[in-house]
């Protein structure tokens, strides 16, 4: 629902984008990507680079990996580029930019370069009419803002408030949608009992 609303209301195009989704801790920004996966799996395989491990844990709670989902939790930046270049994905999700930067084995400057390379590959996908979503952290500004901004064709900010999930378009142009009564990745009763 979230993803379809973003497309229907013109915050992002149906395809050919490299989208940055930024939000603070607790903003529920991943729900945008998770719903995009659900919405687009029917169009073809999805590559989810789950460096945070949250999507994998949600699937563990649900007890299954959807058909057509290619899920990786510990790939190196080089692996990620190679996987993305594999082609044919209806969607590629990078979860998340800070985890890619901080978790990789590389010297300081190498971290910036390798992260930029992954984002460049996402931008190249967008140029070939593909879809790329990168989840990012927001403090005063998005993480790596001054270096990474130009690798995105579209940028949105997600925040969770009393009225629901708010998605604000940052670039290009502006716009906003509010989605009330949004739930997490699994429904009440889905989770197994404690052992």
């Amino acid at each position, binding site marked *: 629902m979230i993803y379809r609303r973003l497309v229907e209301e013109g915050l992002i195009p149906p395809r050919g984008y490299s989208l940055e989704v930024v939000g603070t*801790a607790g903003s529920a920004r991943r729900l945008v990507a998770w719903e995009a996966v659900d919405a687009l799996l029917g169009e073809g395989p999805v590559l989810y680079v789950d460096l945070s491990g*949250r999507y994998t844990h*949600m699937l563990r709670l649900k007890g299954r990996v959807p058909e057509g989902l290619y*899920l990786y939790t510990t790939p190196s930046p080089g692996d990620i580029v*190679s996987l993305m270049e594999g082609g044919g994905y209806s969607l590629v999700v990078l979860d998340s930019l800070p985890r890619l930067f901080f978790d990789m084995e590389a010297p*300081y400057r190498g971290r910036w370069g390798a992260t930029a390379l992954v984002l460049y590959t996402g931008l190249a996908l967008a140029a070939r009419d593909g879809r790329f979503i990168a989840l990012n952290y927001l403090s005063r500004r998005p993480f790596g803002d001054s270096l990474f901004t130009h690798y995105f064709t579209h940028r949105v900010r997600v925040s969770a408030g009393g009225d629901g999930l708010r998605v604000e378009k940052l670039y290009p142009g502006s716009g906003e949608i509010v989605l009330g009564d949004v*739930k997490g990745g699994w429904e009440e009763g*889905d989770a197994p009992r*404690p052992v």
Partner: protein
Amino acid sequence: MERLLGVGHPAHSRPEPPPPLQPASYISTGVRGLDAALGGGVPRGAITEFYGEYGAGKTQLVMQLSVMAQRDGRVIYVDTEGTFRPERVVEMAAYRGMEPRRVLEGIEYARAYTSMHLAALLETAAEKALDEGVVLVAVDEVSSLPRREESGRGRVEAFHVIVGALKRLASLGLAVAATRQVVTVGGELRPAGGAALDSYAVRSVFLEKHGEGVRRAVVVDELGYGRHAEFLLSEGGAVDL
């Protein structure tokens, strides 16, 4: 033509999908409402973080987890701030009908004095965990040492090493519970450590004071978006209202 000359992007085939996932299992927090909000408690094989202001109940909860976990196995408790109180553990164990002496013996305590010391202790914990039946590694608190000692590149490296060690522990199937302080950014409370610790934990719980002795736990990760529980900090530990 480029492809014939070997120029351009190499051709790749898509990899096979990963094998089916193992179901989650949990360690109870000892608070039914919080267990329910977390879908069963603190999951094994994952990092769970508790963050909040001073006095919000972070240390109390990880000490209580160290008691509750002993129904399943041993605990390694790494303390970066010197706030672990054995007498509190004794009270919590007694309240739950557990033998306090045995509970204390089941907690291997270590005090970390520097970032690299913390990382080294976590590496040691990984080595011991498999041999000694450890089910929980608790770290109270995870952000303060790198923030105090390091800046710039040094801080990046310190967080890289610490998060890497925590993730290794989780990958061994252990429950990892960590606490984090908060800072004020633009008038709002945010977990300390910024981007370096963003989403390093699979489960994330914000704790706040909610009246005399009452604490409110709000699950802020996407898995439990909007779920919350209130509990009382009593003599016997954290208990349901």
